[in-house]
């Protein structure tokens, strides 16, 4: 047996790459994970951004980590603990803040009709989100359905029909009323939907934010109800930040026998004819492998590491056209003391604070993004994780982590010119709700999508490796011809957020990819 003939190389040690590595290693495969950065975790890491201050660098809340992964990989035993399992949402506004605990309004000026409507809305949203979560295994695994799929004449294009049939059955099993509602609102925009159902501007703003966070969409954009389902779950705060999740995954992978090398950026894939036979590191080192699994986004994987010339032209064009322009920036503030948000009592400071006071505000914030400009009045999702997790900052001091929108990756004036005024605009919005905040700032860091692209090696700086929308979902994710975690090139697989069911630290793509690799390459 030649060197590397039984090795699986996973390019990228993000959460999906680590999940994939752990499952493959548990199945007895020889696995090597190559991570470009100095620590594993990809965009789910805890990083010191100022002396003594650490923060979850890109992703900052845990929404939807697949519970099977947490259980099967025994992440709790490997060090994953939660500072908080479920955060409340505190919607800041001109008047008193609105406090939401899922379907319940804990505080705020909200009518009883809106309160009842929220219960109904959240109930349905969670049912639909659960329905989508049931499709997380789409295209992977060994079900009888898969055998039907294989009977398709052309083995290169596995039929999605069995999976879609199951999806349709699941939709039908929602029952008549909820099925009709899903079909009615499934592709709808949140603006119309929320206007139709609620009176409270503050409530509508808070609910709409979930449909647009991380996306290049405004509340009036189509499909925003669908995108909101990605965030319908509980919002957890891992102890030690998001790095604790990927840290536990790395421990699980190593415990199963996987080898992980950091500071090993991959420059390209090795090819023998049509087959990927390993990777070449930027150092020039060549590592042979029977199978290469890429945790890197599809555009970098195919057009960068592999190269368009090894692909068919239509496929390469589809990959190039994946909508992956990031629009979300990340703000990290090191604070000398706890921030004082107007009207927010100290015990709520550690919850999820949102600045999205009404639908019009969010839509107006989105408008400039269409023209490659940043929002002068951005929307924010803010956490102060040090409230629960004092280890993240020096004693008595705090870190603030916020997702700030909209900040298009392809800013017309360029981020060299845009960074300072956008940071100023963001601090201006923050200061309206926390007037003393500026004087507390010890250090500030703004990660634009361009920084995320460069520092975290994600094409377009889009944290989902491509917009998570219906036209980039299921067998269309990342593109037809590369769904089912398989590249059109033999020997190459995909396990990242660019594949179904996408990003947001779910881990399902990594788990599915491992199952597909195991099914197609019996040891």
């Amino acid at each position, binding site marked *: 047996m030649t060197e590397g003939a039984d090795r699986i190389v996973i390019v990228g040690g993000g959460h999906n790459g680590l999940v994939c590595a752990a499952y493959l290693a548990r199945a007895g495969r020889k696995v090597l994970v190559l991570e470009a950065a100095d620590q594993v975790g990809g965009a789910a890491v805890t990083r010191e951004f100022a002396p003594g201050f650490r923060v979850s660098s890109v992703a900052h809340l845990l929404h939807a980590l697949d519970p099977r992964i947490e259980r099967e990989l025994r992440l709790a035993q490997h060090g994953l603990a939660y500072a908080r399992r479920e955060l409340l949402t505190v919607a800041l506004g001109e008047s008193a803040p609105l406090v939401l605990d899922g379907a319940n309004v804990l505080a705020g000026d909200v009518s009883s009709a809106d309160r009842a409507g929220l219960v109904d809305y959240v109930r349905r949203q969670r049912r639909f989100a659960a329905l989508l979560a049931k499709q997380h295994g789409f295209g992977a695994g060994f079900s009888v359905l898969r055998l039907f799929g294989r009977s398709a004449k052309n083995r*290169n294009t596995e039929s999605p029909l069995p999976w879609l049939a199951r999806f349709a059955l699941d939709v039908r099993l929602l029952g008549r009323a909820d099925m009709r509602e899903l079909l009615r609102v499934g592709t709808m925009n949140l603006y119309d939907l929320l206007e139709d159902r609620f009176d409270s501007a503050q409530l509508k703003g808070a609910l709409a934010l979930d449909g647009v966070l991380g996306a290049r969409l405004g509340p009036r954009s189509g499909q925003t109800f669908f995108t909101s389902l990605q965030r319908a779950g509980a919002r957890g705060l891992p102890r030690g930040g998001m790095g604790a999740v990927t840290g536990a995954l790395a421990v699980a992978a190593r415990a199963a026998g996987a080898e992980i090398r950091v500071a090993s950026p991959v420059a390209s894939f090795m090819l023998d004819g049509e087959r990927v036979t390993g990777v070449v590191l930027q150092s020039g080192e060549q590592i042979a492998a029977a199978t290469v699994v890429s945790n890197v986004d599809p555009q970098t994987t195919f057009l960068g590491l592999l190269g368009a010339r090894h692909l*068919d032209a*239509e496929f*390469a064009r589809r990959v190039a056209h994946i909508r992956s322009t990031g629009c979300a920036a990340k703000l990290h503030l090191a604070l000398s003391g706890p921030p004082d948000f107007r009207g927010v009592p100290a015990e709520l400071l550690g919850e999820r604070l949102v600045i999205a006071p009404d639908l019009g505000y969010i839509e107006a914030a989105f408008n400039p993004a269409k023209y490659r400009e940043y929002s002068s009045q951005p929307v924010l999702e803010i956490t102060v994780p040090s409230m629960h997790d004092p280890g993240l900052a020096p004693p008595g001091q705090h870190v603030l982590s916020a997702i700030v929108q909209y900040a298009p990756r392809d800013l017309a004036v360029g981020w060299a010119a845009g960074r300072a005024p956008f940071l100023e605009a963001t601090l201006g919005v923050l200061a309206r709700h926390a007037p003393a905040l500026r004087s507390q700032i010890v250090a500030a860091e703004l990660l634009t999508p361009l920084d995320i692209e460069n520092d975290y090696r994600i094409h377009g700086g889009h944290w989902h490796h491509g917009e998570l929308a219906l036209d980039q979902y299921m067998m269309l994710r990342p593109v037809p011809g590369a769904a089912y975690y398989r590249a059109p090139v033999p020997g190459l697989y995909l396990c990242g957020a660019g594949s179904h069911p996408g990003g947001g630290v779910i881990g399902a793509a990594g788990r599915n990819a491992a199952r597909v690799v195991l099914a197609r390459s019996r040891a």
Partner: protein
Amino acid sequence: MTIPREHYRQAVFPTPFHTRTAAANTLNVWHRWRDYTVADAYFDVSLEYTALRNACTVFDLSPMTKHLITGPDALAFMNRLVTRDVAKLKPGRVGYTVWCDDAGQVVDDGTIFHLRDGVYRLCSQERQLDWLHASALGFDAAIQEETHDVAALALQGPTSCAVLKRLGLAGIETLTPFGIRSFAFEGGELTVSRTGFTGDLGYELWIDPELGIALWDRLFDVGAPVGIKPMGTHALEMSRIEAGFIQAGVDFLPADRAVRAGRTRSPFELDLAWLVDFGKPHFTGRRALLAEQARGSRHRLVRLDVEGNKPAKDAYLYDRRRRNVGVVTSAMWSPAAKANIALASVEMPHGAPGGELWAEIYYQKELKWSRFMARCTVVEGPFYSPARRRATPAADF
């Protein structure tokens, strides 16, 4: 000449030779070929055809889609685009090729002119700019649409070499088939390739549109003693069927225009397996074609010798048991081959060389329609291929 960008003011243009082709067109019959008007026939289709096979003819080729491909990756780009190995095409040579979509279905066929080291001209029936741009992703190659910047005439027939010698193109008779050579002409450059669509001895002449009229006049001036005539598209169509050449939109549907499944064809299904080189680097459609090779093709292009003298145009083809197995795509009575010939697409495994098929031919005499079943024999190679087509040095006749 550059076409004005206001294409909505005028969509179809005269070719650089229009003043001359219009003067020669005694029948005044025209049709649209892409952006230009071209003559269907000038004086009599049969006589134009006869002139082609016995003297020589001039056909206005200017509307042919032309692209210039340059840049450091020009060769790599071309090789990823087409099915054949462009690395083997030396400067000064022309190669016929096809290119496929991802599914290995033919997008178009055409000729690659390796004009100078690393500089290629791609001539095709269909417009290809979008496909070429899509294919250029990841390559450092420049693509320039030059259809309107290059005027072209096809000078074809046994006395074509004699005409060029009379034009003063020294040594033209030594140009081998698929060779390219350039000559000074009236202060400009005349590029001559020994190529054509007629299956005869012949040349294609490429020149700056500004010099087009001068070239036309000089050709007819020096060619008159050896019987030069203008030829329209109808006579060209006759000659290309005799040569066994396929045409996009007629004998196969360009893959990017197909909507329905099963309507397109792979190179294997067009009898063009010789153009597919699996030994070269990756090209679009390679994986699909390898799979087809392993699985077997669904269709086959055949050349038929049809019983009788009624052209089998658009005829259904049947096997012995009267089961429909294909359709004729091009057909005619061939004066040169003295045979009733046809190109057809049939389902596998029908149409093996030497095999027999039946064509259902409808014909009309004085408004009365008749139908009969004509026996067809599958033949190999072109229907008409005179030795002068390949002979070098080319003779004067």
